[in-house]
Structures are given as structure tokens and as C-alpha cells.
């Protein structure tokens, strides 16, 4: 008995040690399915997630984000910080040092000139770089020596990790791309379809909008990785088809973004060939309350502007009652299954920024009714609450056309009807709703409704710009072509002060405190934003594929060099 246990233990250890013992290319081929096909392998010329992620197999940045949102070095020897002197005291420069002995997949050495060139390539005035935002505020990038680059910002930058960090700003080879600057960028087909990189794989064949064939990079910095000799990335189909190919038929080892309804998830899991992995980022499905009056009886140009406050949603008690009537657990159950979790936070992640606010998770219909009574709204003859001034609690609730959102609308309408609020539903074509056309009355910015529902998130791990959207001067209106980001028309001097304080705070713990405070102001204290569901990313991988760690902060294929075949 004891011997058997010991043997089993040994076997388990051997199995766990297996990936580490594997040598490069020993595990054969891995098939990856992207339900949107790849059209280019240069992330600087495409903002499509699928293009950025697949190119991350080939080209890499200096540093990336791991699954917790922490920085880790890729091509850099270490992460520059204030402590190690890599970031200057005045926050205007950051100095990166490359790892020693890095080689491109064609065998030539990687130098600081390539890093400088990548910046020049993306910021060339004649070129339309899709990732220009990553280099915003960068004044210059200079090569100090063969392996050192110094990035200088035009103003102090509390978060200097934007340029050359993450899969959207990789390092490209100067020798290959030097004739592709500016307007010539898009014409360099050979380069854009087959970049020379430092990543674990290199392209062997690329059929645009169809399939990418790759093989292990012989010059990859870790001689034992990657475990797979070849990779095939196939594109096309839809989320359900992609999930089926992994979970039921087993044709593919990994499928990206398999967002399907919970019932179908359960059915596919029964297929037994694979499993779903989910990870939660900052994408929050929420209801936004309009603090201004959207009444169609107001003249055009004054509807939903700060000139006319909302007749009843300006009362915090009414907003709170509307939030209390919602059963978020049920919404998740109906709409997202494993791919969602109920939340009360506008900033649900990264962990250090997430407030411990969970009051809203239990539905409280009676409490909501009592709160409305307290606010002076009593049921009228038709059951709809009216206050002494004759203001009826009647809301127009809009969102985009999407099966899950329509289910949410039906459920929430039912709950609100129960507490005596009349609800009219409206669903708008997503192209129009999110289109931002100032001439259309149906955009989410115009907000010609009392409440509306959509999902939003922030880029990267720093919520500062996201929270700064709720400033008074960012209210959309006719004077700024309805382009503001402060959708609720929220305006609070105390909040503004916190935004200013956050911009000047460097210490990470203090920043986290401020972010939590601001999150609570918008959600549990005022209920201006009513978060419903924290929507995760859901992908599927085969039971025989090991090492998959889903990452929402960077490319999903961030650790593809560690993937292996479970034998």
C-alpha cells in the first residue's frame, strides 16, 4: 500500500515535471481557432484584437501583463521602476535594458536601434498607426548603447508603462521594416504578412483572412521552448462553431472568445473533449441613469442636456430603489453562466482597485418599495407610483439589439413594474447605438431615454482615465457634437477634487484607495451607475492542451511558449 502511494506520487511528480523536461518542438502541432479570421500580422496597422493576438506569437514588446495584471519583462532584462532607477524621479523618463543575447528569428541580434525604430514607425506623421495611443506623450526615444533605450515624456507621466508594453506595441525589426515608414507602411505586404520577430513562433505561410501556419522559432531565447513544433491558426465561423470545434468534435485545441449562452455551454461541456476557461477583466454591463430630462416635449438641442434636470432620477432614493429591485445573480444565470459574475463595482478589477462593495447583490423588492414611499411616490390607480406633484415613475429603457440584453430588459422591466415603475423598452441596432453619429437620436451618448444599458471597460490596468470620464466638462451635449464620455451627466465638485488628487498621486496604495472611493461615490453612494454583471472572457481549450492561462490584460496567447501536449 505504501509502495503504491509512493509510486503514484512519483508518477504525479513526473507528470508535473513533464512540460519542463520537454524539448523544443517535441509536441507536434497545435491547432488554434479564431472565430474572426486574421487579416494582417502587424498590430501597428490593425486594431483588431484577432490580428494583435495572433501577431503576439511572432513579435513581442519589452514587457507584458500577466494574468493578474502585473507587469513582467519579455525582451527587457527587468521592469524599470523608481526604486531601481529605471524611472526618473520627476517621472519624465524611463530607461529600458534589453536581455542579453536576444536574436531575431533570422539569427541577427536585437538591438536598441530596433526599439527606437518601432517608435519611429508608429509615430511617423504620414503613417496611420493604429496603436498611436500607446506612444502618446512620448517626446523622444533614444538608444543609449546597444542594449539600452531611454524614453522621454513631454510631461511627468505617473504611468510610464505604455510605450513598448503589451501586445499592442511590439518591437519590430529595423532591417526588415526600414523601407516601410509612413505612407509606405501599408504597401509592404511581405513585411506585414510575415514579420521577423523574437516570439516563440515564426510564420511559414499566411493566407489572408483564412489561415496562418507557423513553426517554432529556432532562435527563441529559451532553448527548451516552445513545446510545439508547429501552430496552425485558422480563422472564421462564429463563437458557437468555434466552441463546438474544441468541445465536441475535438478538431481544434484552442478556441478564442467562445461567448455563447449558458445552456449551450453546459451542453458542450458534456461533449467531454475540452473545457471552458474564463477570466475577468474590467468589462462591466451596467445601467446608466440619466440625470437630465430626455422628454421629447423639450426642443431639440435641449433634450438630455444639463439645462433640464431629470424629474425623478435626480432623487438618489429613486435610483437606489431601482438598483435594489434587480436580482443580479439571476441575470448572470440567464445571460452569461460561467462568463459572468454579479458585481456592484464600476471598477471590478485589478484586485487592488476593486472596492469591497457587495450590498447590491441581494435583491430587495420590499426595501425598494419602502424607499420609493419615503421619496414621496405612492401607487396611483393603475399601480404606477406618482408623487404629490403628479410626477409619474415611468421610464424609457434602451439598449442595443442583442439577445442577452433583450432578456435582461424583460427581467428588469418585470422587477421594476413590481415596485410600481412603468417601463417602456426600446432596442436599437448596435451600429447606430454605438455609432456616435451626432445626427442620430439613438446613440448612447445622446441618451434620449431615462435609463440605458451597455457594457464598457478600460484599456490596460490603470483606471484613472476611465474614472476621469465622469467630470462635468465631459458631459455630452450639442456644443461638443455629443462626444463627451460622461454619459450620466454626473457633476459633483467633490468627485472632481478626487480626480485631480488621483492625477497627482504616485503611491500605488494611495491610488488604490482613491479609486475605491471614487468607485463607491458613483455606485453605492449615488447609484448613478448601476453595475449589473462583470463580463469575463470565455475561451475553450482541449483536455489534451496544457499550460493555458487565460489573460484579460494582454493577448490571450501571452504564454503560448509554455503550452504543451498532455499525453
Amino acid at each position: 500500500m505504501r509502495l503504491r502511494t509512493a509510486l503514484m506520487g512519483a508518477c504525479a511528480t513526473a507528470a508535473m515535471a513533464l512540460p519542463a523536461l520537454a524539448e523544443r518542438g517535441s509536441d507536434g502541432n497545435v491547432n488554434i481557432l479564431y472565430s474572426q479570421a486574421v487579416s494582417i500580422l502587424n498590430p501597428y496597422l490593425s486594431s483588431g484584437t484577432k490580428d494583435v493576438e495572433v501577431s503576439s506569437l511572432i513579435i513581442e514588446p519589452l514587457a507584458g501583463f500577466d494574468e493578474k495584471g502585473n507587469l513582467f519583462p519579455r525582451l527587457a532584462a527587468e521592469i524599470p521602476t523608481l526604486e531601481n532607477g529605471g524611472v526618473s524621479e520627476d517621472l519624465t523618463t524611463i530607461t529600458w535594458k534589453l536581455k542579453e543575447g536576444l536574436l531575431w528569428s533570422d539569427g541577427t541580434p536585437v538591438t536598441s536601434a530596433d526599439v527606437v525604430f518601432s517608435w519611429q514607425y508608429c509615430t511617423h506623421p504620414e503613417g496611420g498607426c493604429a496603436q498611436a495611443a500607446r506612444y502618446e506623450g512620448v517626446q523622444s526615444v533614444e538608444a543609449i548603447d546597444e542594449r539600452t533605450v531611454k524614453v522621454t515624456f513631454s510631461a511627468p507621466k505617473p504611468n510610464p508603462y505604455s510605450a513598448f508594453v503589451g501586445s499592442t506595441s511590439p518591437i519590430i525589426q529595423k532591417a526588415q521594416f526600414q523601407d516601410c515608414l509612413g505612407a509606405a507602411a501599408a504597401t509592404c505586404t511581405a513585411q506585414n504578412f510575415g514579420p521577423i520577430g523574437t516570439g516563440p513562433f515564426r510564420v511559414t505561410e499566411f493566407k489572408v483572412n483564412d489561415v496562418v501556419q507557423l513553426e517554432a522559432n529556432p532562435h527563441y531565447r529559451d532553448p527548451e521552448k516552445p513545446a510545439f513544433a508547429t501552430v496552425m491558426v485558422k480563422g472564421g465561423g462564429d463563437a458557437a462553431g468555434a466552441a463546438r470545434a474544441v468541445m465536441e468534435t475535438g478538431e481544434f485545441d484552442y478556441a478564442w472568445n467562445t461567448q455563447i449562452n449558458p445552456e449551450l455551454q453546459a451542453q458542450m461541456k458534456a461533449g467531454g473533449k475540452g473545457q471552458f476557461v474564463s477570466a475577468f477583466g474590467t468589462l462591466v454591463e451596467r445601467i446608466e441613469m440619466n440625470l437630465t430630462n430626455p422628454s421629447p416635449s423639450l426642443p431639440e438641442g435641449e433634450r438630455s442636456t444639463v439645462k433640464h434636470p431629470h424629474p425623478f432620477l435626480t432623487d438618489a432614493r429613486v435610483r437606489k430603489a431601482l438598483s435594489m429591485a434587480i436580482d443580479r445573480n439571476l441575470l448572470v444565470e440567464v445571460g452569461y453562466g460561467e462568463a459572468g459574475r454579479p458585481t456592484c463595482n464600476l471598477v471590478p478589477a485589478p484586485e487592488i482597485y476593486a472596492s469591497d462593495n457587495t450590498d447590491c447583490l441581494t435583491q430587495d423588492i420590499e426595501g425598494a418599495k419602502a424607499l420609493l414611499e419615503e421619496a414621496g411616490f405612492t401607487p396611483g390607480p393603475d399601480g404606477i407610483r406618482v408623487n404629490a406633484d403628479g410626477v409619474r415613475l415611468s421610464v424609457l429603457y434602451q439598449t442595443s439589439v442583442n439577445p442577452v440584453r433583450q432578456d435582461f430588459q424583460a427581467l428588469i422591466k418585470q422587477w421594476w413594474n413590481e415596485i410600481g415603475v412603468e417601463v417602456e423598452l426600446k432596442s436599437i441596432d448596435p451600429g447606430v447605438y454605438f455609432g456616435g453619429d451626432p445626427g442620430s437620436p439613438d446613440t448612447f451618448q445622446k441618451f434620449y431615454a431615462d435609463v440605458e444599458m451597455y457594457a464598457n471597460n478600460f484599456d490596460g490596468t490603470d483606471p484613472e482615465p476611465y474614472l476621469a470620464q465622469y467630470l462635468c466638462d465631459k458631459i455630452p451635449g450639442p456644443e461638443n457634437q455629443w462626444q463627451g464620455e460622461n454619459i450620466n451627466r454626473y457633476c459633483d465638485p467633490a468627485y472632481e477634487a478626487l480626480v485631480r488628487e488621483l492625477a497627482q498621486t504616485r503611491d500605488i496604495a494611495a491610488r488604490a484607495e482613491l479609486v475605491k472611493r471614487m468607485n463607491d461615490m458613483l455606485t453605492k453612494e449615488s447609484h448613478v451607475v448601476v453595475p449589473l454583471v462583470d463580463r469575463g472572457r470565455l475561451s475553450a481549450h482541449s483536455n489534451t492542451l496544457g499550460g493555458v492561462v487565460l489573460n484579460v490584460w494582454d493577448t490571450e496567447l501571452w504564454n503560448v511558449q509554455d503550452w504543451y501536449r498532455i499525453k
Partner: protein
Amino acid sequence: MTDVPFQPDRATERPRSQWAEVWAQFKTHRGALIGLAVFVALVLFVSVGPLVWTRSPTYINPNAAEMILSRNKPPSWQAPLGTDQLGRDMLARMMAGGQVSIAVGLVAMVISMVLGTLVGVLAGYFRRLDGPLMRLTDLFLALPLLPLLLVMVMLFRDPLARSLGPEGGTFLLIVTAIGVTSWMQAARIVRGEVLALKEREFVLAARSIGTPARRIILRHILPNIVSPIMVSATLGIASAIITESALSFLGLGFPPDFPTWGRLLFDGVEYIQQYPARVIWPGLAISLIVLSVNYIGDGLRDALDPRIRGR
């Protein structure tokens, strides 16, 4: 025994009214009879059905635990057609949806027939109006239908919803939109018929005794073109129902919690693999109504044409 009682022959049979004649002919068309039966059955299902089956089509169980259990149920005595992904009763939804779809089909058809006949008769009878009216018809035919509908919905939805309520406003908007964009075929057919009829002897005779144009049209021309109008009308019902489905598909039709057959179909598509019944029922209803209406049209055309009648 040679005294055979007098047998009246067909020609001296008691004269029957024109409509009895039509019905007698209609009865001989088996497809049309079945079509009529199906059509009447469907109309009764959506109009009388809700009085018998009183569950609300939008009722969701307020108790979360019970609601989860009542989702996606197969057919049972509590819910003969099962329930949908939110536990709403599919039978009640089919009835409510059918009311809207059939009403939209009929009203839009009436609008487009009135318009089409008017334009066709005017263009065919009055030579001077022919050119302009037919060019107008060409213009409407050349207009892409869906974008036009989108613009109309965007421009008029809010003002109409304000004066007639969201459902009433949308109904009026949709039937008008479908009506004014589907009269062109009817107008062309009617014009052709009128052009031919106008040269016939009985019209010439009427004109020679000084009958005014209005009377000639009403008395001699319209009764003779009833059969092509009927046929395009039946086809019109079918295409109106389908257009409404398309609009619901795009989220431009009725409010999302307001079931129509088109929307039920749209909602069901996502669940087609797990619960095929969710798409089969509304799909079947749309197909049945379209087919039955087409057969009725076929039978009516035969019955209304005196040259075919009796043969």
C-alpha cells in the same frame, strides 16, 4: 309512363347571386378550401385563443428560484408549447405574436392595394397621367426598400409614439411604411389590364352614350380587374408579414418585449440547436399563413373570372 316530369335545364335554374356563383366555383378548388380553413383557423387561434388561454405572454415568474426552474420547458399541460428562455409561455406568445403579425399583414395589404389600384387605374385610363405616374412607380421600384424603411422609422417613430403610445405608433408606422413601399407591382398589373380593357367594345359603347369617366371606371373597369387585384393582395399579405419579421429582426419593429411571429423567430434562432421547437412554431405559423393566403388567392382568381367560372 312516357310522361316524364318537366325537368328545368341549367339555363332556366333560379338565378343565383354573383357571390353565390363565385362561392360555388371557389368550392371546387380544393387547395383554396384547405387554405381558407387554415387561414380561418389561424385567425381564430390568435383572436379567440387568448380568451381561452389567459396566460400573459410577458409574464415572468417573479420568484427567482421558480423562474429558473420554469425556463426552457418542453410541452406540458401547463404550457402546451413549452416555455422560452425566461419561462414565458410560448402558446400565449404565439397568440399575441400572431395578432400583431396578421393585423400588420392585412392592414398593410389594404393600404398597398388601395394605392396600387388608384395609381394603376389613373395611369391606365388617363393617357396624360400615364407617363408621370409610371415614372413615379419606377422611382419607387428603384428605391431600396430597407434603407427607406429605416429612415422612416427613425424620423417618425418618436412623434408617432408620443401621440399614439409606443405600440400604436409603431403599428401605424410599420403598416404605412410597408403599404407605401409595396404598391408598385399592383399598380403595374392594374395599368396593363386597364389599358387592354379600355379599348374593348363595351367601354367604347359606354363612352359613346356619354358615360362620365368616373362611372366607366367604377362600373365597367374595376369589376373586370378584381381578379388580378385579389391575387396581388394575397401575395401582399405574405410579403407584409415577412417584411415585419425582417424589421423585428433588425430591432426596428415593435418594442422588444412585444412579441410578433418575426421576433419570436429571431429570439429562437439562438436556441435552434437545443430547442428547435422555439423556431419551428413561429416559422410554421408564418409559412402556413403565407401558403394559405396564396391558395385562397389562387382560388379567388379562378372563381372571380367569369371566363373560367363554370368550367
